[in-house]
């Protein structure tokens, strides 16, 4: 068996008495579309923060292609090929949509230190920017300020920025959060296409499971900081423990209902 692209070993972080992520060991294989689901507060975003380096674990390891990256900075992890999006929209608000994406492409093209070249002269980047914006259906908004976009559009912009980095693995933190429900299918279609066209490994956090069943190869259920279940979407959906976790526990329904 090949080494998994991302692996965590007994990954743990506690904030005071609270263990936000508790002893999580997961493996994410290359080219596999993994979705991490779980109720709010289960530690999904914290897990992402640990994998992408925003937080340092209190215990355990994070491995990328078999190498221990637990002590690398976020910057170094990006350089290795990890791109992530954020749950709360995290763009450059007072820059245009185009500029947002262009900055990501520029990072990937490694021309940031060209002090006296005109940034507009890099035609290729501008073309690529156009292509990416087309891909995420934002072409018409390219000269708008990022701050003026709707929530859904901002999520698309985020996705374009992560794609622009051309990372080996995309860590997407609830790309549909805050979108109008009607916009969600388009977003997932976008992800589906990305998965097929670009041949990337995608790890997705999602609160709702039914939306991603068709998309995911593997589902990991996180509850109270620990892995509750793991497997193919049908397997996980059939797991009574998962249902209970989502509904709030069987005992509760008897006690309260």
């Amino acid at each position, binding site marked *: 068996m090949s080494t998994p692209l991302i692996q965590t070993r007994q990954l743990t972080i506690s904030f005071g008495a609270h263990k936000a992520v508790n002893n999580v060991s997961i493996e994410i294989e290359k080219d596999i579309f993994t979705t991490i689901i779980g109720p709010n507060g289960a530690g999904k975003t914290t897990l992402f923060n640990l994998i992408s380096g925003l937080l340092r674990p209190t215990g355990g390891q994070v491995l990328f292609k078999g190498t221990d990256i637990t002590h690398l900075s976020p910057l170094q992890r990006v350089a290795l090929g990890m791109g992530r999006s954020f749950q709360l929209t995290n763009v*450059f608000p007072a820059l245009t949509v185009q500029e947002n994406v262009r900055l990501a492409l520029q990072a990937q093209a490694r021309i940031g*230190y060209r002090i006296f070249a005109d940034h507009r002269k890099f035609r290729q980047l501008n073309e690529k920017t156009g292509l990416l914006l087309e891909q995420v259906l934002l072409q018409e908004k390219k000269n708008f300020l990022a701050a003026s976009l709707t929530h859904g559009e901002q999520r698309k912009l985020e996705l374009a920025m992560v794609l622009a980095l051309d990372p080996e693995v995309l860590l997407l933190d609830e790309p549909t959060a805050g979108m109008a429900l009607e916009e969600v299918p388009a977003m997932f279609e976008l992800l589906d296409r990305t998965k097929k066209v670009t041949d990337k490994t995608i790890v997705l956090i999602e609160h709702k499971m039914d939306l991603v069943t068709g998309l995911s190869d593997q589902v990991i259920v996180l509850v109270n900081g620990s892995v509750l279940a793991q497997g193919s979407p049908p397997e996980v959906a059939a797991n009574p423990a998962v249902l209970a976790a989502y509904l709030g526990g069987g005992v509760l329904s008897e006690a309260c209902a």
Partner: protein
Amino acid sequence: MKTPAVIKLVTAGAKDRKQFVAGSAVALIAAAFLLMLPGFAGHATISLFSRIFILAVFGMSYDILRGFTGVINLGHAVFFGSGTYLAGILFLRLDPTPGTLLLAVIVTVVYCSAAAFIMGKIAFRGGGVIACAMITLALGEIVRHLAETWRDVTMGADGLTFPIPYMFRDRLLFYYYALLFLILMVIVLRRFVLSPTGRVLLAIRENEQRAIFLGYNTTTYKMISLQVGGISAGLSGVMFALLTRFANTELLTIQQTLNALLVTIVGGTGTLYGAIVGTAFVQLIQHYLLTLRDVHPVFTRWLLFFGSIYILVVLYMPAGIVGAYRQLADLLSSRNKKKIA
């Protein structure tokens, strides 16, 4: 809440053709006016304008940091003052020749580069805007303190008077040198701002964490920004030495830094040109206030007014003159569009 129009237009760049043409026209008219100014203005006015040109560069150097990178450096005067001191000391110790001036420029660039490196290493060690402001203030004060104590070289609080190369002594000629210096620096800094590096600085100003997650080593970029800002300030300090032929520790104080800060704020931060407009505005007002000395002695304390203007601008006109102008232009153009539609 609306995003200030300043930022909008700067980032949109000059790709808007109409705006570009308008901008060029303004620049041409201004250049023509400034070129002909010595024909009808007196000596005092010419000196005042030379001063404006040089201090405008100092202001722009500050805008690179504050307006484009979002860094508040309260020790920026170190670069400017050191430029003046280095030039002065060299002119005094060696012959005041163009060769010495060249040497002074080289020494200033090297010195400012090194100082920016050290300052950045300490100030950018985490902690954000607040820590950076406090630390740079402390560093600046230390340099001032050193200059005051090191009397053998700097003459301490008495100040340093020095000769300058012959070719710069003519006020009229110097006016053109200063104008040329300003134009050159505008071209260079504008290029820098529009370069890929300059764009990254904007990204840092907007959202540093996101910039890191795009793979930019933001600390390095901030260091670059400080290098460019520091060296530009140092060069304007050298020019200032040629203008005033005198250096004192005032040039190294927080007050001097605040002068640069004020002109960028009055003119409009993150616009580069705002610093020029702001410098002109502040210098003209200062000049006018000082002529009121005879009316009432309180006008000798013109800093009182300077500080008040400063507070009022921060409270009521945060986008500055250029920003307010652009907002107005924006408003008008959007109204026109609505009419058409």
